[in-house]
């Protein structure tokens, strides 16, 4: 168990450091999108789920309107509810730990917890990854936002081209099978086709509704 714990801590720190670097880009993009330093840090402290955070500030930054961004962030956050479902039997959290554990239910902690062969190791992996990632995610966000505030014109550094690259990096690991590849291609085309005819931000919601209908009507294999 001691060796197993050491391995888990090493993996968790690796993930947390990588996420901290990714949080630097979140801080920078958020600051460029017009959010204040406090708003940017609030998102990393309280929302604490990367894809939703990037989506909210990305949509706001692109002029898509705050509420379209909120809707997109919530739709992206839905997967965390399913992660929670998978984790609930492994973690068996009750009492005051439940609201704290809930905050840490994200891609990385779920992956680390379900990869273990014993519930005890799963719990350890979940908490260590959650705590380390939370610390570095917030430090990275602060660093990125502070660095960007010091810049005279973020567009000179190409920071307006950063959000698409960030979304692509989040999307790529989900494209290993044929079906998600087809869904991604269709979603990109549909979003661009409807874009000139609807208010900014709405193409995302059109795509979300269509994928919901597709998923609900298709038969599980």
């Amino acid at each position, binding site marked *: 168990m001691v060796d197993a714990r050491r391995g888990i801590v090493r993996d968790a720190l690796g993930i947390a450091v990588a996420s901290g670097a*990714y949080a630097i*880009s979140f801080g920078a993009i958020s600051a460029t999108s017009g*959010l204040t330093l406090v*708003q940017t840090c*609030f*998102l990393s402290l*309280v*929302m604490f*789920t990367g*894809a939703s955070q990037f*989506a909210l500030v*990305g949509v706001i930054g*692109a002029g898509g309107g*705050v509420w379209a*961004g*909120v809707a997109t*962030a*919530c739709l*992206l956050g*839905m*997967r*965390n*509810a*399913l992660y*929670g*479902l998978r984790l609930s039997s492994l973690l068996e959290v009750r009492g005051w730990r439940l609201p704290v*554990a*809930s905050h840490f239910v994200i891609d990385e902690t779920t992956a680390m917890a379900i990869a273990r062969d014993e519930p005890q190791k799963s719990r350890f992996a979940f908490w260590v990854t959650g705590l380390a990632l939370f610390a570095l995610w917030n430090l990275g966000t602060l660093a990125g936002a502070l660095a960007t505030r010091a810049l005279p014109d973020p*567009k*000179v*550094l*190409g920071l307006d*081209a*950063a959000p*698409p*690259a*960030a979304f*692509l*990096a989040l*999307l*790529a690991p989900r494209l290993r099978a044929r079906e*998600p590849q087809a*869904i*991604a291609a269709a*979603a*990109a085309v*549909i*979003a*661009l086709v409807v*874009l000139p005819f*609807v208010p900014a931000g709405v*193409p*995302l919601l059109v*795509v*979300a509704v269509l*994928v*919901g209908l597709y*998923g*609900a009507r298709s038969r*599980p294999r």
Partner: protein
Amino acid sequence: MIWAGVVVASAACYGLKLAGLSLPRRWLQDPRLQRTVPMIPVALLAALVATQTFATGRHLVLDARAAALGVAAIAVVLRAPFLVVVAVGAATAALLRFL
């Protein structure tokens, strides 16, 4: 206005996490829900990539961001870390505008 959105979205995202850990399991075990929810990030992230690269407001445009996305895609294929993908994308756009 931004504050309201920030607070509402943060509370909703936390609520989704809390619901997953605390709601009765059978509520979320519908097979169609289990199949559909993982598709949503794929579709939304792809739509975000497309609209934030090829559009400004409600106009389709082709500019330095398209080249930036191409270079970022190469970085992804080469399994570069997240920050590198974002940095090469931004650097490509900056370089093209400078030239």
